[in-house]
């Protein structure tokens, strides 16, 4: 038996992935345990939860693989400091504290935290981890691979070919030229939190029109071969740590938006302008990705594309890639960001160790299970009104059909940033008012944020066009809503007529599948609004305790925790 653990940590979204004899057993993000959003600390709780899933202790691990090379990162940081001197002198204390204070010792820290001998701890490289994380669990034997994020060691964009059981880099773009950093800088400019607000920018973009193409042409230049260069005087991420854009960008686009300010598209011309900037950023992101994809299509001749890296979570861009890049099929690993690096690192080491490859990924329910016993004990102690229905899924469907909002925690929690029916809030998709209620009262987030529908896979074509792809089971793409059936999707059609649809099968999400099946029998529409089970700024719920805490503090009508149904006293 071979047992390999992949780890990502140190920047954001730390995670662990466990592979035994080539098969993926568990993959979890540390934030689900520590309740710190995007927790970057060494994922010790995630590691031990992965091991518990397999019934093993740390002593059974043959190899631990860290998802990037800390020494290559140090080299890039030092070179960047030298190249940007004297503007970079203020960064020296930060560089010292991050690199010498902790980063270069991370392998030692992993060794001591997990009590694993240091010589069992290996490294790979950041973009190789990303590439492995998406190619090997994909349904393809051969594919072009595109990895796009902020920055790895020195690479920001990688073009790869996956073939004959191996991955090879064909071309790369180096820091500081980075699509991820362009998106991050504009995310900060628009008043959102970096590494968290990028989804908001994508949602905001649909409310604007790309009127700022001329200005953006000063920020980034595109080449016919798909490569790109940032105009560095407009950016500050290479010389400062507190801000990603320079005063020159504010001269070009106008003053930045204040964080936390209420959005008002109807009465504020400024907010409409910021939406236009978001739309232009989205347009440029798509153009860059299309250029890269067309180039790698030409270079590899492959008809399949695998995507990874934080930028691959841009589902609007992914949909456009599928339509216009020339690839027949596209796969995006659901934890495409840095968390996914843990999976890639583990796969690489597993192949290295015993030549075994993982099966295609058909579910992202790879986390810890809900404990029915713990849930029952908690609700009894708290005196919460609860029942144990014979068919919990049918009871859930009854509530949804009755227009109730149901928090749903069932099975193993999800791998990646999307709630796909294991830790979700579910509601009927028809009524637009449901969206208002979810946004304002329950999730307490910006009014322009869309909600996603989850639908039985074999029925999805009745409501959506272009949903039948390798991305829809993991909600990493969008599809057009069929106008003739748009009335069924009032709560989850975005302003641009699209929806980030999740297609559900019994294998991908058994609990949600059963709910949708029961809902189909009752209403003829096997579809729900599916949004993540978390409060504003919190990680998605992990345990029964997290779930019940959510129920106590948020105004959902009911909650399913394992096999227990909790209802408000008013129901």
């Amino acid at each position: 038996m071979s047992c390999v653990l992949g780890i990502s940590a140190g920047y954001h979204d730390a995670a662990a992935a466990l592979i035994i004899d080539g098969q993926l057993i568990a993959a979890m993000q540390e934030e689900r345990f520590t309740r710190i959003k995007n927790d970057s600390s060494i994922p010790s709780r995630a590691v031990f939860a992965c091991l518990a899933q397999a019934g093993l202790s740390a002593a059974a691990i043959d190899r631990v693989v860290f998802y990037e090379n800390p020494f290559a990162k140090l080299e890039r940081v030092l070179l960047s400091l030298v190249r940007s001197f004297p503007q970079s002198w203020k960064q020296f204390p930060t560089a010292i504290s991050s690199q010498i204070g902790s980063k270069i010792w991370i392998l030692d820290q992993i060794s001591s935290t997990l009590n694993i001998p240091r010589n069992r701890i290996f490294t790979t490289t950041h973009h190789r981890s990303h590439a492995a994380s998406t190619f090997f669990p994909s349904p393809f034997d051969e594919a072009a691979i595109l990895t796009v994020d902020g920055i790895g060691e020195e690479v920001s964009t990688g073009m790869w070919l996956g073939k004959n059981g191996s991955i090879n880099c064909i071309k790369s773009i180096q820091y500081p030229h980075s699509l991820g950093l362009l998106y991050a800088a504009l995310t900060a400019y628009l008043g959102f939190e970096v590494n968290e607000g990028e989804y908001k920018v994508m949602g905001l973009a649909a409310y604007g029109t790309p009127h700022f193409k001329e200005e953006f042409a000063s920020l980034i230049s595109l080449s016919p071969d798909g490569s790109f260069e940032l105009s560095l005087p407009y950016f500050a991420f290479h010389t400062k740590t507190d801000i990603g854009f320079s005063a020159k960008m504010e001269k070009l686009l106008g003053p930045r938006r204040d964080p936390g300010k209420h959005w008002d598209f109807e009465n504020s011309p400024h907010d409409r302008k910021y939406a236009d900037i978001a739309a232009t950023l989205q347009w440029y992101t798509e153009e860059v990705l299309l250029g890269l994809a067309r180039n790698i299509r030409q270079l590899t001749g492959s008809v399949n594309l695998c995507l990874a890296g934080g930028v691959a979570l841009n589902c609007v861009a992914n949909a456009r890639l599928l339509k216009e890049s020339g690839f027949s099929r596209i796969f995006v690993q659901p934890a495409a960001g840095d968390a996914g690096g843990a999976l890639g690192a583990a796969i690489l080491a597993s192949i290295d160790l015993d030549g075994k490859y993982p099966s295609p990924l058909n579910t992202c329910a790879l986390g810890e299970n809900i404990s029915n016993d713990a849930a029952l004990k908690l609700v009894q102690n708290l005196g919460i009104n609860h029942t144990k229905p014979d068919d919990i899924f049918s009871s859930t469907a009854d509530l949804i059909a009755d227009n109730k909002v149901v928090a749903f925690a069932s099975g193993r929690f999800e791998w990646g940033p999307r709630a796909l029916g294991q830790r979700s809030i579910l509601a009927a998709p028809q009524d637009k008012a449901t969206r208002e209620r979810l946004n304002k009262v329950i999730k307490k987030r910006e009014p322009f944020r869309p909600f996603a529908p989850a639908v039985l896979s074999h029925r999805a074509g009745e409501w959506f066009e272009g949903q039948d792809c390798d991305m829809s089971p993991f909600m990493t793409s969008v599809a057009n809503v069929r106008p003739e059936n748009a009335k069924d999707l009032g709560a989850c059609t975005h302003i641009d007529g699209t929806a980030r649809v999740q297609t559900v099968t019994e294998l991908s999400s058994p609990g949600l599948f059963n709910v949708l099946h029961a809902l189909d029998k009752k209403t003829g529409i096997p579809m729900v609004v599916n949004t993540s089970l978390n409060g504003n700024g919190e990680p998605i719920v992990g345990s029964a305790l997290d779930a019940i805490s959510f129920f106590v503090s948020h105004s959902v009508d009911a909650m399913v925790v394992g096999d227990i149904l909790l209802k408000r006293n008013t129901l």
Partner: protein
Amino acid sequence: MKTQDNKNITSIPWIATLYSLIKHFTHRQRLFLIPLLLILLLSGIILIFTSGLSYVAPFVYSAF
């Protein structure tokens, strides 16, 4: 495909890290960075002893 070769790595953590660090910089012919690295190392040790290691910044790419 291969992850790095660990056969010469000791099981004593900090020695293993220093060995890997020197090996990396020698292998990549980046020895001209060693003086800067030494300054950072010395400053880092001072910071560790004075408990001065804490910062929060969203754009830490150039320092990471």
